[in-house]
């Protein structure tokens, strides 16, 4: 774990809480907010897992090495 991961995970958590609150809100039509922030929460959770991914060595011919 590193600081990048530690800073992104709270974003996913805050957005998840927000999505739940909006989904359960008895006033207004807030389900759209729940969908958007719920998607955002899942996305940032996915991005945080990308921050944990790591290869041991540089692979020859990786996309970045191509011109």
């Amino acid at each position: 774990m590193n600081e990048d991961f530690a800073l992104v995970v709270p974003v996913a958590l805050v957005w998840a809480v927000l999505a739940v609150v909006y989904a359960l809100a008895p006033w207004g039509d807030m389900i759209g907010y729940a969908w958007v922030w719920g998607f955002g929460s899942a996305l940032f959770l996915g991005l945080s897992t990308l921050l944990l991914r790591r290869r041991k060595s540089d692979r020859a011919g990786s996309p970045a090495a191509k011109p």
Partner: protein
Amino acid sequence: MADIYTERLAALPRHDRKLLKSMAAVALSALVLGILGGVVTAAARGGFLDIIPATGYRFLTVHGVSIFFYWLFTAQAALLLGFAAAENGRGLVWRGLAWAGFVLMLAGFGFSLTGSYMGTPLLYDGAPELGTDDPSGLLVFNLGYSLLGLGLLVLPASAIGTLLTPRWQAQQERLTAVGFALFAWAGFLMVTGFAALYTFLPGAAWALGIGAFPADHGTRWHIVFHNMHYLPLMATVILWYVLVRSLTGVTSVFGERFSKIVFSMYLVFVPPTSLYHMFLEPDLPGAVRVAGSLLSLFVSVPTLTAFLIIVASLEVHARSQGGRGLFGWMRMLPWRHPAMASIGVAVLSMALGITFAFVLIQGDLAPLLSDTFFVPGYFHFFTVGTVSLTLLAAFAVVLPAIGGRALWRPGLLRWMPWLAFAGLLVFGAAGIAAGYMGVPRRVIDVAYQSQSPALWMVLMAAVGAGGAVMALALTAFTAAVAASLWPQREPAPSHRGMTVAWDGHALRPGASAWVGPISVLVILIAMYSFTALGFELMQSLPVTASGGAAH
């Protein structure tokens, strides 16, 4: 020390440079088209141009569609990719996704403009039932924004892959502050793309006969609007951070980790503050209204904190280079570069924009001001003065670096942001005053057959005049920046003489930095004063607030 971004951008692979130039060309074209729509609208509102209201609305639609959606987001996407590639140092990965996203956005632009040409599109303030009059128009217009949303979902994946590849290859322990900011920006762009799809796909599906009627389309607009408002501001602050390093060599004196915390704060603070868009909903409970007012106070915390980091870092470095006086150190900044002039105007515009934004989102003032010209009066400080000038500043650095022509006449160009600011001050002051006076914002002709107060037309004439100056300066600036898209026959001369390099120099012990905190204090005092003025004015008028579908 050499400017790392300029050098890395210059060394990008040819395919990446081609993509960035194509995106910049589309973004700048959208800006020019939007400016044309805006200046015609402002002239019509100011009484300088006699056009029928339907034509005026069409120009207003082209103005909003081109600038608020396609200029701001194509430019953001291009700059995100460019700086992500520069961070990586070896170019873009998953380039096919970047191209696919760009093509989707371009197709969306075509559909949106066609929809604007076909008729009056159903916007957020229109009754959904109006869509039944022209389903084909709704289909084309909504397809445009849906394609834009899809493009925003796809394209940032390339930036994310580019930023993370060095880490995946065990060549980088953690992202740099800029790398982390770009990573967060890319994620937020994808969420905004999803929000656009959620908002606009149902209307298109209904028009195609495969979905339910979008009766709640106004609420869906609220959702996408919140992201559309704050994402460009996040992009602006990130670009200030990058450009200040490029133009002066200065990085944060508070360290990379603190910068990352501030950039992540955008993502934590922005979503919960969206409640204030609901203030005009009649069934919103009082407790939620109070919570929304309190939360709205946090909306500018990340922006102001990032502003403090940048200004304090610049001040400490300038004082270490011999800068003196409370404000005298600012003379040492590289004002000869048009990008620095743009950032200066952007900061001033942001201060004014934030001041009046806080006036508008007061729970009691929102119903009175939201449908008045106060709104366009204040938000042009953000869209033009803050965001657009920052994006243009970034292009003024990026385009010459990726192998285009050197910046055209920088000595003349550096005055364009200030000329635009002069026009903006007239436009904004007259517009905000008109809003306080009750001038409606969605009406092309406010004369009401000479029945409206005479002052209304005077203020609208000032709006038109200020808008014309602003448009002229912005068009000149845009055209000059776009000239750098043309290939250079000879190597472009370095812009080194226009910048300073304060990195690598020891900081003077005990150097103070007061301008940032003083600026925030001035903004707070101004916010309080204009809010008080708003209440005084409104209470003196013989009107009662009534909620409407405004945001």
